[in-house]
């Protein structure tokens, strides 16, 4: 059972394939993430699912309907939080919710009721009469999210929903999204925050250059693409590369970043002991569990030393 089914989805702009054959399925009530570096094709995929961008090829159904034929029907049951806010700056905060609700043909009274609830939800009730221009970036983001819920959507598309939010607002939003999920709303989201992906996504795909590099739950991805632990050692920015040469062969693999070297090993402490045994003296060292960050680095990363 699926609410979103994409198969060999392609979007070309001229000769350039922004999305180059992506396939995935999302079940009702599932929370599905798209992860990937800038320009990977996440937003383009979101727009195709959102039935505002016609696919070049491949097949796609959303809520069992083809966006090519049933755009308005699909969009009636979607909530969309685009990467870039498109609130009406000429209207006030609450008016933005009212006008948006009317696009769906919802009765005025119902829209007004929901608008007030959603202002509470977004903690903007005291700003109801403010001009959108006067809101901070994070407040605008919250208003956009509130607006996306005005039609009580089946599927919520969230393109980097918490970019620009402070940590507290992010945690509150995660909590709200959890509750929506509990009520059965399907979430499709993109994010650059790996902690957010770990918190929110049941399943995710890592996308790069318009293709899927890996797919699975956060835990299974960490298991498949990383070791249990990671040792982070710093030698000072100009000496990391030399040190890495001396560390060759240690752990499963090494990752040299500008400011530190990552040693992937199931036992981080043992790896650290070996570092010291090889006569190296890191300025700082840290052993931690692997995270999605490491998966992301491995799949899309730059200086990969096996």
């Amino acid at each position: 059972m699926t609410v979103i089914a994409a198969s060999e989805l392609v979007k070309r702009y001229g000769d350039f394939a922004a999305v180059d054959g992506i396939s995935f399925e999302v079940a009702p009530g599932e929370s599905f993430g798209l992860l990937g570096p800038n320009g990977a094709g996440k937003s383009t995929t979101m727009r195709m699912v959102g039935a505002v961008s016609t696919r070049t090829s491949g097949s796609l159904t959303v809520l069992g309907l083809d966006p090519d034929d049933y755009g308005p029907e699909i969009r009636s049951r979607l909530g969309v939080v685009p990467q870039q806010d498109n609130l009406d700056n000429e209207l006030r905060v609450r008016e933005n919710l009212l006008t948006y609700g009317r696009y769906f043909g919802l009765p005025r009274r119902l829209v007004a009721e929901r608008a007030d609830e959603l202002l509470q939800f977004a903690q903007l009730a005291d700003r109801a009469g403010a001009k959108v221009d006067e809101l901070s970036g994070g407040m605008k983001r919250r208003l956009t999210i509130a607006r996306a819920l005005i039609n009580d959507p089946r599927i919520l598309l969230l393109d980097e929903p918490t970019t620009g939010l402070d940590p507290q607002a992010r945690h509150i939003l995660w909590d709200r999204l959890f509750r929506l999920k509990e009520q059965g709303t399907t979430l499709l989201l993109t994010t650059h925050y790996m902690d957010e992906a770990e918190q929110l996504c049941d399943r995710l795909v890592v996308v790069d250059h318009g293709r899927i590099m890996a797919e699975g739950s956060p835990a299974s991805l960490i298991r498949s693409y990383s070791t249990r632990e990671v040792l982070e050692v710093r030698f000072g920015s100009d000496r990391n590369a030399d040190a890495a040469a001396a560390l060759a062969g240690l752990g499963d693999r090494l990752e040299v970043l500008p400011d530190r070297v990552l040693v992937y090993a199931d036992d981080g402490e043992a790896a650290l002991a070996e570092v010291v045994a090889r006569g190296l003296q890191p300025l700082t060292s840290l052993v931690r569990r692997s995270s999605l960050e490491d998966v992301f680095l491995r799949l899309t990363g730059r200086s990969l030393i096996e």
Partner: protein
Amino acid sequence: MSQTRATTDFAAEARAAGVRARRFGALYSAEHHVRVWRRYLGVNVASAIGTPVMYLFAFGVGLGVLVNANAGPGGVDGVSYLVFIAPALIATAAVTIASDEFTYPVMQGFKWNPIYVGMHAAPISARQVVDGVIIFVAVRIFATTLVYFLVMAAFGAVPLATGLLTVPIATLTGIAFGAPLFAYAAAQREDRGQFAVVQRVLVLPLTLFSGTLFPLEQLPVFLRPIGWISPLWHGAELGRVTSYAAERPVWMIAVHLVFLLALAIGGWRLTVRVTRKRLDA
């Protein structure tokens, strides 16, 4: 079995939810523009009353005395100067509003304050986005020219009964002028001052050379084509026919109407095409 049923349930629900937007989406999008417009209602009403009053004094009392004295007992086109220009002034007001609404606000809707993009992410189709703007502008022109008409009627510049038709004619004139402009504006990705140029090389000459303040026949032959291709001339002439029963051949009346309708419909369809392409990113 439960699988297929659940899937069709979502689809059925979406189909049901989309019915109203499919049918009335253009009105919902127009409603948004009206809501924004309402914020400036005070200014709009004041200018809708003030401008015609100003014209009446300038043209009716000031220039009119001079023209009437020169024109002799026959007047201009058989009537007093004020009666002659009143339908044209009403049509000019329509064109002015259209040239305001179908330029910068369009660029805004796509780009600076992208409400068109927002509507399109909701169930409003590209075509309904366009229709919504046109409906709103038509409403705005209708309301404004109605006030113009009432003010002018109060001063005896237009007869109350027959002159009322100048309002729908002006509305058609505004849309005939504005719809092609809308298509142009929708195709603009950057603001390079094009709209200021449009105001100067299109709107201004049209208001001056469209047989509004003097009969087109007063112009040398080589300038008259400006009037022929100008929706304002066609609209003003139609207005005169209805307002003071100006004598025009029937075929000419038909030409005026067809020309205005063709521009309005052609411009509208072109705008839909441009907008559909642009919103489908």
